């Protein structure tokens, strides 16, 4: 089936099998390998992307369902290699180690901060609940997001 999708400002047209998950489409068809796969049950959130302004896990959407939508992925966060405030805060607070969950974490935190510019610690944790990190124990990630909160 034909799918037209705009990712990080670029419009792509592809012919995909209906069974293809959006995450595989992003990674394998569009070569946007920043979003990751960490589980096969929708739990880990490493594939989180923002679809038409809504934070979703791209492993629980078919690529064909993304026809006509606008998607933001980690590759689109910073412009010209300049890290965003949030990305800088992750660096300053040592909020990543292996970096595998990081793209999903950044997307979840980005979605949170758009909706709520000054989240409480509890709100930050709740916003990150759908993203598993096995390296950091989350403390520094929460600190990084709080640091950007107004």
């Amino acid at each position: 089936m034909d799918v037209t999708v705009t990712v990080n400002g670029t419009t792509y047209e592809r012919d995909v099998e209906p069974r293809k998950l959006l995450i595989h489409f992003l990674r394998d068809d569009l070569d946007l390998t920043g979003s990751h796969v960490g589980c096969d049950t929708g739990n880990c959130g490493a594939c989180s992307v923002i679809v038409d302004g809504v934070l979703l896990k791209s492993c629980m959407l078919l690529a064909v369902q993304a026809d006509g939508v606008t998607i933001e992925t980690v590759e689109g966060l910073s412009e010209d290699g300049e890290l965003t405030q949030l990305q800088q805060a992750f660096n300053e607070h040592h909020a990543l180690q292996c970096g595998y969950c990081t793209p999903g974490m950044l997307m979840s935190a980005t979605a949170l901060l758009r909706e709520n510019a000054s989240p409480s610690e509890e709100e930050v944790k709740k916003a990150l609940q759908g993203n598993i990190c096995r390296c950091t124990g989350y403390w520094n990630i929460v600190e990084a997001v709080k640091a950007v909160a107004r």
Partner: protein
Amino acid sequence: MLLREVEYAKPGSVAEALELLASNDGARALAGGQTLINVMKARAASPDMLVDLNGLDELRGIELAADGTLTIGAMATYSELMSSAEAKARPILGEVCAQIADVQVRNRGTIGGNVCSNDPTNHLPPLMVAVGARLTIASSDGEREVPADEFFLGVYLTAAGPGELLTRISIPAGKKDGFAAVTLGAEGTCICNAAASVNGNVRVALGCVDAVPVLVTADAPEGVADAVRGANLMPPSDVHASSEYRIHLATVLAERAAAEASSR
């Protein structure tokens, strides 16, 4: 990951969706997909066709009638329900939805999908039974309304059968509700849950103890524990809880949910 081959259809109306479902034996409705797609990844189920209900605005929306009856479109997401001003009329709904899975899942997963999948670990089936929800099922023959305690037939099986669609859920007015659950970690997979509603008598629906929510009633919250014992539960044992422990949890959680309900 890596689903079996499947056909995909995106109907433009409920009528078209019903026609697709009725004319394709192996077709299944795709709501939020937050359960179905994962089951398909495991290849534990492989529908021949997915009929995507996203985009059917008829199935969205949350309305509050003058008599306090709340009508929730089957395709309303948890997030929509949580932020709906109308849904505040029955506060327990938003409170329980806020405990389901995580932000991403709540943004996509639907109320209808939750009740129709009727996974024993889901929160909404017992809640629907406790609050006395009525579920409207559409088929090519028209619509029928089923009370929640008759809606759930088995694991992944409900009164909305092949060729049918749950279209909306109506919930009567009320505020005296409670909910209690023991989950794996904070707000994780459910080990046992109980939803309660007090309206004259106390209705408590227990989740995760059988294929369908188990309804017990009592005259007062104090009688709930006896009512649970009287239900002769035979819950499944699994890696998280033995049958015996689930029975115990069901009793404690039923009391807690009932106490919360009556305190409101």
